[in-house]
């Protein structure tokens, strides 16, 4: 196995999933790159059993609600899934169709929304927009339940165009109003539970008598449009294909400026965006073919470490790598709060615009949390992923400081670091000489030293890149 094949596979798994340990990388690289892309796009592994989590956290079963329950539940899936791209796409759509507990305050409905992203995330975008327009959490989040034929509420109508499909600058204020009229009467109704305690579930409800059935003019088309007609027109717009392509590029390839800047700042790689947008249009708005083209492209393969990890990638990637968090132990609620400390509270984005990504993830407070979290996990030599590294180092026998550092950088990624960074790591390792495994005492000392150097590697700047 050449080290470059491993490095490329590590790149694919970091972006198309949440990273992978050495054994998985070797197995996937042996199978081949394109075959792995196919496995990611068409996952055949069993989905995570939702009931495993609920079995151990019966208090999380509906209808009780409290902040954080949904994100703990989702974190369990993020850590355990064997269908990594599917789950990465759930995160992607959660970034784009950002819906938050700050207002919805009903974790079960938020989880139902991300379940919808899991079901449809690699499917048809038009169908997903229709499902989104009927999604109870979204209807409540953007007040479409208050969008009446006699009193139009523009919240959903505006964001559908501005943040979910076309982007600012591609429609007029009149289009927003007409679009909103078409979605009047699209509302929610509660499902009364058998036991009247806590939150009721919601379901989509279309109230014909509350729908404004009049003629509307939207993006140059005129007719007695209902919501689905609006979505069909939206999907035909080249701006929508460009918008979706740019989102995918920003999420999977390289950091772009934030969404509000898109109307003013062209993409850094317009050719790549055009390629993705064309695939999207040609396939009739299917997402899977776009992902296939993206991951097999040179612009993707050449974008190693060109992105700052999101907090979810830091937390989930580190936990999956270090291991030991697969079982939904009592601390999982607190564990799930860590992405929030780094500026990304799952199921509770700051607003419907979602999170500002890339370098905007980094500020002094968030960087401190990112470093502290990764250093604590990777420096914990009892965790299975770290045990695996120790085992792999041990079979290499006595290791001079330089080889010790290089092996650790290789096994943790491979992680590419600047020569200056490597020099500091080597100097640090040199203070205590070569790594030896001859006696029980030496094994103890060396194990501790591996933990220490991994802690330091977790705090280097390069670890912040995906």
């Amino acid at each position: 196995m050449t080290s470059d094949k491993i490095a490329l596979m590590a790149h694919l798994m970091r972006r198309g999933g949440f990273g992978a340990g050495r054994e998985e990388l070797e197995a996937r690289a042996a199978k081949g790159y394109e075959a792995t892309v196919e496995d990611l796009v068409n996952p055949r592994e069993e989905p995570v059993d939702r009931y495993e989590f609920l079995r151990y956290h019966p208090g999380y079963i509906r209808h009780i609600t409290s902040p954080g329950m949904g994100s703990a539940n989702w974190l369990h899936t993020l850590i355990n899934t064997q269908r990594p791209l599917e789950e990465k796409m759930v995160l992607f759509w959660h970034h784009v169709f950002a819906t938050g507990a700050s207002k919805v305050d009903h974790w079960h409905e938020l989880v139902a929304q991300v379940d919808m992203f899991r079901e449809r995330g690699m499917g048809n975008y038009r169908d997903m927009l229709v499902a989104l327009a009927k999604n109870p959490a979204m209807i409540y989040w953007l007040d479409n339940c208050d969008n009446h034929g006699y009193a139009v509420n523009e919240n959903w109508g505006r964001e559908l165009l501005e943040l979910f499909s076309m982007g600012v600058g591609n429609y007029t204020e009149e289009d927003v109003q007409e679009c909103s009229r078409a979605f009047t009467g699209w509302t929610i109704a509660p499902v009364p539970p058998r036991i009247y305690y806590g939150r009721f579930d919601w379901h989509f409800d279309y109230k014909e008598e509350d729908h404004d059935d009049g003629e509307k003019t939207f993006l140059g088309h005129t007719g007695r449009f209902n919501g689905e007609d609006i979505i069909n027109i939206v999907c035909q717009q080249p701006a929508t294909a460009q918008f979706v392509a740019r989102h995918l590029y920003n999420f999977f390839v390289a950091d772009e400026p934030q969404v509000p800047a898109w109307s003013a700042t062209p993409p850094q790689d317009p050719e790549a965006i055009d390629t993705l947008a064309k695939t999207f249009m040609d396939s009739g708005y299917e997402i899977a073919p776009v992902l296939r083209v993206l991951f097999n492209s040179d612009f993707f393969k050449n974008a190693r470490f060109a992105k700052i990890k999101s907090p979810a990638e830091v937390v989930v990637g580190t936990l999956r790598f270090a291991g030991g968090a697969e079982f939904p132990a009592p601390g999982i609620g607190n564990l799930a709060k860590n992405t929030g400390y780094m500026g990304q509270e799952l199921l509770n984005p700051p607003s419907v615009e979602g999170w500002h990504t890339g370098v905007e993830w980094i500020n002094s407070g968030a960087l401190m949390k990112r470093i502290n979290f990764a250093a604590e996990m990777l420096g914990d030599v009892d965790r299975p992923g770290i045990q695996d590294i120790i085992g792999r180092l041990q079979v290499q026998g006595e290791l001079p400081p330089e080889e010790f550092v290089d092996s650790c950088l290789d096994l943790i990624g491979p992680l590419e670091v600047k020569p200056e960074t490597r020099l500091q790591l080597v100097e640090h390792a040199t203070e205590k000489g070569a790594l030896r495994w001859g006696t029980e005492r030496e094994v103890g000392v060396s194990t501790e030293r591996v933990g220490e150097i991994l802690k330091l590697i977790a705090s280097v700047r390069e670890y912040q890149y995906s």
Partner: protein
Amino acid sequence: MTTTQRDPVLVVLQLSGGNDYLNTVIPYGDPLYRDNRPAVVIPEGQELALDDQVGLHPSMGPLKSLYDEGKLAIIHGVGYADSIRSHFRSMDIWHTCEPDKMGTEGWLGVAARELDPRKENIVTTVSFGPSLFRALVSPDVPVACVDNLETYGLLTDIASADERTKILDRFTRMYAPAVGGDFVMDYLGQTGLEAMDGADILKVAPGLYSSDVEYAETTIAQKLKGVAQIHLANLGTRIFYCDHSGFDTHANQLGVHATLWKDVSEAIDDFFTDLREHDAADNVVMLLFSEFGRRVHDNGSGTDHGSAGLAFVIGESVKGGQYGEFPSRKTADLQQGDLVPNLDFRGLYSTVLEDWLGLDAKPIVNGTFEKPKFL
């Protein structure tokens, strides 16, 4: 410039989501107010009247007291021409003072650089909240971003103090600026070092603090408590920034808006009471703003995105009262159903920058604008 013995300090409290102007400073004397608000209305007599025309929202009692004491200025009709009704774009405009193109520098980022050009104090600006506000962003300007002052610190899980010192020393060298580094690497390096140094400075604040004031348990009161702790520790912080969100009241506005203003008003009252108790209020001015106001006519349950809004400026040095003109509510005077701004927000900023922080506003706000004279 107002003279104070100590360096002037600015606290910005951002009301995120678009605060409803008409139900905050209520034009209760105008029949058009009630005509436009069949559902989202403050019943006559409940407003806290400031004069025979306008009154504050009934849950703003503490702010009414500050107004009566002459320490609260209301700035009417704030906004910018051709107002944009997107939260994000509008907030960007307020943050960068660039309505016509995408700005990269925040107005307070530039102000912080002017206040401390040699970066002598890395806690000149302190932001409360998980992410950095664009208003504070400027290349090479450090901002300490704190969420919890009590647990702020790098690699605090290393038990041995000796070992931690060694690791932090290595960290310092790894994060040192390198020749030919790219922007993101340099930014990470600088942020990492500032995080480490800033934590060392800020962590003393809670230990030095004691107060008779019991802040409310609300998020905004707890943020302002953190601001007070750092201010009272005399660490030289000149700009504090925090926000309170939830003002996007498309639905169920009456209850939600009342709670928002109750929480904000009580938190501000706690904050200034605390500062006065420590004789540390006279060099602090607080600015409250929102990215836009809301539509004049309600939608049956809430109000949609609008245009002109209002700002509050609070402090011992503030000349209380009302500034500017409440925009006309007459149908013929509205634009797309919204109040038309008559005071550019950059004029409001200019007053704060020039007459409080002692800076030249023009290069910061990108032009010269009419300045309301509340300082």
